[in-house]
C-alpha cells in the first residue's frame, strides 16, 4: 500500500494516485493530513506537489506541523521509503527529513516547462531503474525551486552520493545555462544520508504516459515500486 498525503492546498495528489494505481497498477490511497496514523501495511509514502497552506511563511513550513507528519517521521526513521515532489520536497526539507531548503527561483518567475535531469546516483531505491548519467525528461512547475544548502554540508552530501538528480542540457552537460531556477550545483533531487527519503523538484507523476508528453517519470516511480517489492520478498 502506498500512501499519498493530502494537505490543504495539495494539487498533484490525484495525479500521483493516478500514476501509482492506474499506470503502475499498485494499491494506493489518499491520506488526509489530519490523520495521525498511516494506513496499515504502508510501504511507501508520497508527498505530492501543490501549495500546502498557501505557501504561507515559507513553502512547506506549515504542512510540516500537520498531524500526519509525526507518523511520517516515525515511518522514515524506521527506514520506510518516502518520496516528495515539488511542494513535497519543500515539506521534507522543512521537516528536517532532508538537508537544505528551497528558495524562490533566481528569476522570481514561476517556471512551467520540461527539463532534462541527469541521474547522478542510480544506486538509490528511487533511481534503480535508471543508470548513472542517464538523462530523464521531466516537467517542472514551481516558484520556489532553487535548492540551497551550506557549502560544507553540500560537500558532505556529494561525498555520500546524496545528490541524485541534476539539471542538465540535452547533451547531458550540467551547466549554468541548464539550471532553470538557480539551484546550488544544479541540484534537482537529493536523498537523506540513510537513502530512504527522496525529494525532487521535477514531477515524475506527470511523466508516466507517452500520450501526455513522456514516460520518463516511470523510471523513478518504478524504482520505488521495485524497492518496495524487494523489501517484501526479503521479509517473506
Amino acid at each position, binding site marked *: 500500500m502506498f500512501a499519498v498525503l493530502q494537505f490543504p492546498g495539495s494539487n498533484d495528489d490525484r495525479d500521483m494516485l493516478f500514476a501509482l494505481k492506474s499506470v503502475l497498477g499498485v494499491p494506493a490511497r489518499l491520506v488526509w493530513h489530519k490523520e495521525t496514523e498511516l494506513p496499515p501495511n504502508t510501504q511507501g509514502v508520497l508527498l505530492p506537489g501543490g501549495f500546502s497552506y498557501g505557501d504561507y511563511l515559507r513553502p512547506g513550513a506549515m504542512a510540516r506541523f500537520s498531524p500526519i507528519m509525526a507518523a511520517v517521521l516515525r515511518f522514515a526513521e524506521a527506514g520506510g521509503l518516502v518520496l516528495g515532489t515539488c511542494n513535497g520536497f519543500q515539506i521534507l526539507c*522543512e521537516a528536517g527529513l532532508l538537508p537544505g531548503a528551497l*528558495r524562490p527561483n*533566481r528569476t522570481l518567475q514561476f517556471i512551467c516547462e520540461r527539463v532534462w535531469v541527469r541521474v547522478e546516483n542510480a544506486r538509490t531505491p528511487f533511481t534503480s531503474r535508471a543508470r548513472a548519467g542517464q538523462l530523464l525528461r521531466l516537467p517542472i512547475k514551481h516558484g520556489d525551486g532553487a535548492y*540551497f544548502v551550506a557549502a560544507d554540508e553540500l560537500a558532505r552530501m556529494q561525498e555520500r552520493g546524496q545528490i541524485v538528480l541534476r539539471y542538465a542540457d540535452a547533451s547531458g552537460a550540467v551547466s549554468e545555462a541548464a539550471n532553470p531556477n538557480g539551484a546550488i550545483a544544479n541540484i534537482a533531487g537529493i536523498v537523506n544520508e540513510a537513502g530512504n527519503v527522496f525529494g525532487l523538484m521535477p514531477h515524475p507523476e506527470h511523466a508516466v504516459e507517452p500520450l501526455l508528453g513522456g514516460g520518463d517519470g516511470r523510471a523513478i516511480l518504478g524504482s520505488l515500486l521495485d524497492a518496495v517489492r524487494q523489501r517484501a520478498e526479503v521479509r517473506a
Partner: protein
Amino acid sequence: MKALVYVTLKPDVLDPQGVAVAASAHSLGYQALRAVRQGKLFEVELAAADERAARTQLQELCEKLLANPVIEDYRIERIEA
C-alpha cells in the same frame, strides 16, 4: 507582552527579491542605493511572566517556526509589557 521579531536571510543565501527591489530603485533614479536584502518582521503578542520568559518562548518559536535555521537568522527586539 508585545515583541518584534526580525527574520533575515543568512549572508550567503542569494536573495533574488532584494536584488529585484534594488534594480527597481535604480530604475527610479536612486543610484546611491547599493543593495537591498528583503526580510520579514513579525509583531507578536504573547503572555509571559517577564521579559526573560518572553524571550525564551520567542527563541523557541523562531527556531521551530518563524525562521528556517538553514537559510535564515532571527533577532528578537523591543519586548514591551
